[in-house]
């Protein structure tokens, strides 16, 4: 069976692959926040750095762009809307629709920031094993009172595991209904309700079986802890990330 998405962990030996997930998670937050404040030159520098990292991590750029094509369309729409609704010196005009120089510039900045946030997230996902993300989340939540961090981490893991299963079940059910000419029914509410009920039923049955299977394997909330102490390389990377984020935000 083929992979559902290329936006998943890819084994590798790059620097990002070897860093601790907690450092990468902090880095993701800091760099995203810095990019949201960055000027165009800083954003360009950050984008170049991101491209170098992507190449270093052996990311398949073509497959990646294919995967995020709808997001790219969304970003393009944001750019067009921004360019045509911001007042300023007109660059071109079609009828009553005009794009201003200021709008094009601001649109590029906003879209660049959005793309950078998404790119940072993608680099994080493709270089971090799901269980490392889960363990990092549990580690960050541990000091927060009233939050069962282990349970949250387990639930995160189960969601990642079962989303494709539920989509698969929904697709099978939809195919089975199409095979019985459900498309002849034009009422979308009727079709949706006929699809939702069996999919929900199957999902609950799957959840019930899962709970039983977890119980059979002695599931409980106190489990072998995963995160090890941060190494020297992780700490150096953390300092560099903080400096880079500050520079991006300030310059």
């Amino acid at each position: 069976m083929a992979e559902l998405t290329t936006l998943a962990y890819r084994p590798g030996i790059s620097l990002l692959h070897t860093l601790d997930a907690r450092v990468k998670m902090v880095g993701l937050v800091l760099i995203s926040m810095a990019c949201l404040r960055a000027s165009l030159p800083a954003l360009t520098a950050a984008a170049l750095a991101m491209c170098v990292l992507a190449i270093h991590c052996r990311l398949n750029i073509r497959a990646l762009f294919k995967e995020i094509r709808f997001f790219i369309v969304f970003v393009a729409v944001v750019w067009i809307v921004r360019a045509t609704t911001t007042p300023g010196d007109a660059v071109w005009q079609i009828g009553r629709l005009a794009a201003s120089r200021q709008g094009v510039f601001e649109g590029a900045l906003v879209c660049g920031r959005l793309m950078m946030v998404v790119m940072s997230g993608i680099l994080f996902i493709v270089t971090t094993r799901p269980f490392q993300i889960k363990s990092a989340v549990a580690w960050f939540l541990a000091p927060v009172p009233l939050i069962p961090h282990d349970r949250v981490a387990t639930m995160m893991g189960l969601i990642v595991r079962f989303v494709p299963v539920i989509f698969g079940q929904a697709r099978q059910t939809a195919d089975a209904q199409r095979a019985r000419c459900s498309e002849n029914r034009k009422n979308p509410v009727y079709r949706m309700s006929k699809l939702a009920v069996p999919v929900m039923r199957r999902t609950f049955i799957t959840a019930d079986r899962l709970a039983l299977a977890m119980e059979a394997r002695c599931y409980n909330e106190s489990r072998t802890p995963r995160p090890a102490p941060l190494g020297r390389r992780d700490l150096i990377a953390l300092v560099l990330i903080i400096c880079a984020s500050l520079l991006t935000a300030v310059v």
Partner: protein
Amino acid sequence: MNIIEIEDLCHRFADGTSGLQHVSLTIRRGEFAVLAGPNGSGKTTLLKHLNGLLLAHSGTVRVGGIPVDRDPVGVRQMVGMVFQDADSQIVGETVYEDVAFGPENLLLSAQEVDRRVKQSLAAVELQVSVDQSPHTLSGGEKRRLAIAGVLAMAPQVIVLDEPFSDLDYPATVQVLKQILNLHRNGHTVLLTTHDLEKVIAHADRLILLRDGRVARSDLPANLLKETEAFGVRAPCATRMGLEVESWLS
């Protein structure tokens, strides 16, 4: 020496229907027993009692001398259960994660968890990346991953619920080979099926269930001719008056 002892076990479902009626059965340590019966005969219900997932309404179930209702968690370490639907048994986002799930629940050290994961994957000869998503595995690989997940808890008894369902011929042969390896390595194996053809040549004992009762329990050779009276199709070779051959030969 018996590792599983069931005495006068009765189970009733929430809607009042009877799942098991006065089941008494013993399984010897190291035995390979096949539990057969038509749909609704109580096979899965009986297996769930061995693992403490269901508790007896009356009667007793003992595993290794320990009553299941007294220490269900301890018993679950002794009896590993492989469910019919491997997809809903696999809980990890990656192959490694899934096999590690059980040992981590036992609070073993990270090194020991790692050792068990590698050992279990090697035992079922699952040659896939440990970082692969279980969702992308084939049916046979998922079944072997489910077995590896159970093996990592180092159980003495392995119960498998319809392990060959939905598998093609090569996957069935692979899974059968793994089950026989487990038996050869000293595990007690109890397996349910309604299709004797695939496994009965290797079994030490055949137990036939009907309507929640043990209808027959004997050497396979003594029972194969009468299985159809209990809703289980006899192997083709038996119907033709021949000896049942292994699927591995």
